[in-house]
Structures are given as C-alpha cells and as structure tokens.
C-alpha cells in the first residue's frame, strides 16, 4: 500500500472556475500572437527583446519550480529520507512549472516553426549559454515526467511497469539533479554577454552563474517550505515542523553564502558606493537585499523556525527576494541606452497570468485525483 493518496475532493470549485476564465483570456491573446505576430500582443521593442514572457515564465518561473530539484538533492544526494513525504508534491509543482517555462519559451520564440534547429548538432553553438539552457530545460522536462510517472502508474495499478522503472530510476534521479545545476547556472551566464546593459549592481560577470545557481536552490527550498506551511496555516493541518526546521537550516546557509558572494563582489570591484546613490537601482538593491535578510533573521531563531506562520512569511520573503533579483538583473535594471524603455502591455500580462492559472488548475486537479500528497498530511 502506498504512503500517498489522492485528496478526494471536488475538482470544479469556484476558484477553479475563476482560474479557468483567466486561462481562457490568456489563450485568446495567445491566439492573437500566433496569428498577427508578437508585436500585436507585447510591448517588446528595438531595445528590449525580452519582456515578462522570458523573464517571468522562464527565468523566474523555472527558479520557482526548483522545489523538486532542491528536494531531490536533500533526499537522494544527502540521503535525508525523512523529507520523502514532500517529494511528490514538489515534483508535481516542478513538472508543471518547467513545462510552463518550456511553453513560455516556445510562444516567445519568434521563429517557433524552426525550433528543431536547437536539436540539430551541426546548428548547435556550444559557445552560447542559451543553447545549454534550451537543451537542458527540454531534457529536464522529460526527466521530470519520468520521475513523476510512478504516481500515474500507481493510480492505474501498472505494478510491473513500475517495478521495472524503479530499477533504473536512480540514474534518472541523478540526471534530474545534474540538469538543473547546469541550466540554472547557465541562465546566469546569459547575463554576462549583456555587459554594460545590466546595471553594475547586478552585473557580476564571472559570478553570474554561481549567483543564479544559489538563488535557484534557495527558491527551490523556499517553495517547498511555502507550500507546506501554507497548507498548515490554511487548512489547519499539523505543520511538518521537524522537516521544515531542517529545510530552514539549508535556506539560512544558502542565503548567507549568497550574501557573502554578492557583497564580496561589490566590495572587490569597488561598487558598494552605488548602493547609496539614491536612485532607482539603489532603491531596488536595498529592497532586494532586505527581502534576503528578512528570512535569514527569522530562520536563524529557533522560535521562527518552529512557527508555521513565521515560516510562511520567511518563505514568501525569500521567494520574492530571488524573483526580484532575477527580475532586476534581466529586466528592470537592463538598460540598452538610446532612450529605449519597456513596460508590459495588458494582453502580454494576461498571457503570463493565463499560463500560471492553467498551471494551478492542473496542479489542483492532479492532487485531487492522483496519489501525490502524503497520507499523514491530510489524515
């Protein structure tokens, strides 16, 4: 008998319908994009080739989907089996987040019908971080589907197939840890070639991949804490505090390391003064740093780690911190000069919101019909 079971509740609820409507609006504008071009929907322009579709759906979205990655490291690499109860929900969220990231990349792709060129060895440019990101994200989506497939097989009672899969699952798990490590750091590398267009407070050149990887991991752990403490607070379940305490410690370590490297780079390259320049970049930097420091302070205290509510606040702050860091580096603090500016259009925003809404709908459906959540969690 499995330790997991579906949350047998009604699928069609009021929030579900609202999400459905948002999803439909998104799909409407998406149809526009394919019929009349990207320009008919977005505010992208000569100076800003990437807007929220790339920066939210891919750069931030895949980091928010790093829960499966972070837990896989904890459970399988560091052998902390006690975190196992959380793995399936985290995996599902990652699977959906990455799939949506992949779809986001596709709809943003100006020449999508030639997308297969990424897969042709003679076309590949191994100097380009973008190639690495594209290939690894594609491969990782497949890996996530395989990692998640036992859930589906279990639901339909395909026992033999499941046994066979379990024999080779370890190698899939290993690839599943490797791929995000690769493409999350390469996402950072993509900032290097943008050079001066990225504000000096965010242009750390050689350190970009490391900072990107650290934020991906921190966000991955935080999303697990977030999902778990949210259901504890929201559905009045017993919080899984011992598990959460352990994850919190990991987050504290990662944030500390991140801050040391981040400020070390600014100090080393003599850019600390820019923090106090009193302009928009300095303001954004201060907000971003505060969002990193808050969870650090909360989670350092024993009391903070044990309380579901403070845990939730800390996790939310951390998610905002990591997201803002990436938004700043890729978009808000990206300045191509020549007076170019960008702010997303309403239809452009609706497409992103629509995608997120559909993602949540699928998540809700799956946890209600497939054995994803751990038994004790909702006994």
């Amino acid at each position, binding site marked *: 008998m499995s330790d997991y079971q579906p949350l047998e509740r009604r699928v069609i609820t009021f929030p579900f319908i609202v999400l459905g409507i948002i999803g439909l609006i998104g799909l409407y504008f998406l149809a526009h994009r394919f019929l009349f071009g990207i320009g008919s929907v977005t505010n992208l322009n000569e100076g800003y080739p990437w807007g929220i579709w790339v920066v939210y759906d891919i750069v931030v979205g895949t980091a928010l989907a790093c829960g499966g990655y972070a837990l896989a490291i904890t459970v399988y690499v560091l052998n902390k089996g006690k975190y196992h109860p959380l793995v399936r929900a985290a995996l599902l969220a990652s699977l959906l987040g990455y799939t949506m990231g992949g779809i986001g990349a596709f709809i943003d792709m*100006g020449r999508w019908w*030639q997308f297969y060129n990424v897969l042709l060895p003679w076309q590949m440019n191994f100097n380009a971080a973008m190639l690495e990101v594209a290939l690894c994200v594609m491969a990782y989506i497949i890996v996530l589907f395989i990692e998640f497939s036992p859930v589906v097989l279990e639901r339909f009672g395909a026992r033999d197939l499941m046994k066979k899969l379990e024999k080779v699952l370890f190698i899939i798990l290993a690839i599943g840890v490797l791929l995000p490590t690769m493409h999350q750091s390469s996402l950072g590398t993509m900032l290097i070639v943008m050079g001066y267009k990225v504000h000096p407070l965010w242009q750390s050149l050689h350190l970009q991949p490391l900072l990107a990887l650290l934020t991906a991991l921190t966000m991955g752990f935080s999303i697990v804490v977030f999902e778990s403490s949210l259901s504890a607070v929201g559905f009045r379940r017993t919080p899984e505090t011992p598990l959460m305490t352990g994850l919190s410690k990991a987050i504290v370590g990662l944030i500390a390391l991140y801050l040391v490297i981040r400020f070390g780079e600014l100090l080393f390259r003599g850019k600390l003064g820019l923090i106090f320049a009193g302009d928009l970049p300095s303001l954004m930097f201060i907000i971003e740093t505060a969002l990193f420091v808050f969870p650090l302070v909360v989670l350092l205290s024993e009391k903070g780690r044990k309380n579901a509510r403070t845990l939730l606040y800390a996790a939310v702050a951390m998610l905002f911190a990591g997201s803002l860091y990436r938004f700043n580096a890729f978009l808000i603090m990206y300045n191509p000069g020549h007076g170019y500016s960008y702010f997303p259009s309403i239809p452009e925003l609706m497409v992103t919101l629509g995608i997120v809404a559909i993602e949540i709908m699928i998540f809700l459906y799956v946890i209600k019909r497939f054995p994803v959540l751990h038994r004790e969690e909702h006994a």
Partner: protein
Amino acid sequence: MKRRDFLKASVGGTVVALSGGSAIARPNLEPAPEAIGMLYDSTLCVGCKACVSKCKEVNGMPPTIRGEDVQYDSALDLSPQTLNVIKVYRDGKAEVKDSETNGFAFEKRSCMHCVDPGCVSACPVTALIRHEQTGIVTYDADACIGCRTCMTGCPYNVPQFDYNNPFGEIHKCQMCNQAGVERIDNGMITGCAEVCPTGATLFGSREALLEEARRRMALKPGESYMYPRGDVRDPISSHERAVPSYLQHIWGEKEAGGTNVLHISSIPFDKLGMPPLPDRSYASISETMQHSLYQYLALPALALGGLTYVIKRNVDDDEGGEK
C-alpha cells in the same frame, strides 16, 4: 570515494570552474585575416542620408516616411526596415557643426561588424556567422529560431526582430554581402559607401581604414587634406578639405575587442550615443565561463557519475530499511 569527499570534491571543482578557472580563459578574438570594414568620419558627414536610401534600395526595404515629407527617408532609428541610420547630436543652440557645446554632429548607427561579436557568441543555433576571411557578420534566417538572444548580446543594439510579422525574422546590416546581394564577393563596395558624396562613409579593409584613420589623427587642424570617396585604396574620387580637430580616438580599434566598422569624430563618442565598453569583449568572458563549466562536457559527466553512484547507494539504503 566517500560521499562526503565526493561532494567536497565536486563543490570544490564547481567553485574553481565558476571563478573563471583562468587556465582556459578565452581571450578576445583576433580580426579576420582579410577583415573588410568601413570608416565613418563624423566630421565629413553632411547628414544627406543618401546612405540610408541606398541601403534600403540594396536590401529591398521600404523608405520610412513621416508626415508630408516624402523627399527623404526619415527613419529615426534602427528598425527591421532600417539597417543604417544617421542620428543627430544637438547641444544648446546647435549652431556649430562638430562642436560639443552649442553645436551639432552626425553619427551613423549600423552593425559595427565586431571582431568578437556578441551576437554570434550568444546565438544558440549559429544563425549569425562571422565570415572566416572577411569577418563580415551575416544572418541565416533558415537557422534562426527567433529567440532574440543576439539582441541582448549586441553591445550596439543592432539586430532587429520584426515583431509585427507573425513570421518575422532578424534584420541587420550584412555589409551588402548576404546571399542574393553579394556585392563584396562580386568586387563591389557597400551601397552606403558607394553613394556617400563626402567620403564620410568609406569602404576598405580594416587594416587600410585603420591606417587612414591614424593618418587623419596625425594631421594638424586647418591643414588641407585630400579625402577619398568610395574605396580607401581605390577611390571613386577625392576632394580637398581643411582638417577639423579630430578627437584622438578611433572607435572600434579596441572597444570590446574592436570592430571592422570604425568611427572617428571631433566630439566624444559617449555624446554620440556609443556605449561604455571595456577592451575585453563580454563574449570572451561569457565563453570562458561556459567552457570552464562545460569543457568537453567533462565536468558534467564527472558530476553525473558521482551523483549516480551516491543516489544508487541512497536509494538502495532506503529499500533495505523498509524490509
């Protein structure tokens, strides 16, 4: 290797690699052996925009028309329909040409045909190619997936994606040598250099143009000089003119690894809209990082081996525990 040791080793390896492991640092690329380029002398330019019109004719692009004025191409900036544009610097009363204060000056914006092009480095599918001999950077629409990474990677914001076409593509100056045009291969010069009445846009090899630029730098203001038109080595014609006071700076000699299109002027280039670029190309830093991390995929393969071993052990442990 014990798991702890393995983790330490792989973390250590990653840190070394991430810190830019200098042993395999990739330096700036060198100019192509027969690099072809252009020299734009802002002080010679009269803003007639003959070059803009000719560019559109060669590339089969419609003129940009604003208001009633149909005599001139009035494109304001680069766009999918404008690969070459003349911009104006203005200060105060804007009365004196080539004066930084109360003056005005012209500046040409078009692909600089970088020696170490960011666009080429960033394109995942090799749709942008730097020609081995001529250094000309051309575009292959059949390869392009439209991801627009080239736009983020170009220090001059040159590549332009046609957002308003559902089947749009990237547009940029290809030095009149793209398939179907091939002026350079056929022994001709670029369209803009051919029609420029003053020689402000001059065609030639990068070497010859650098030489010419250095010669002009060395002249004394007020001296008279024979300015060539068309091709620097084989001018269509020449005209005599008093030498202005040049800024001692050849843009594109060193900037971000240098460019094949060089600019000279008498007012500082940042005033003309040139970006703040260090000598080391961003492409070289980016590729250094990419290759430190993925040299022959050795690091990922090693990491995968280690991870597989550790995970297999841990998964087996778990199963053992359950029995």
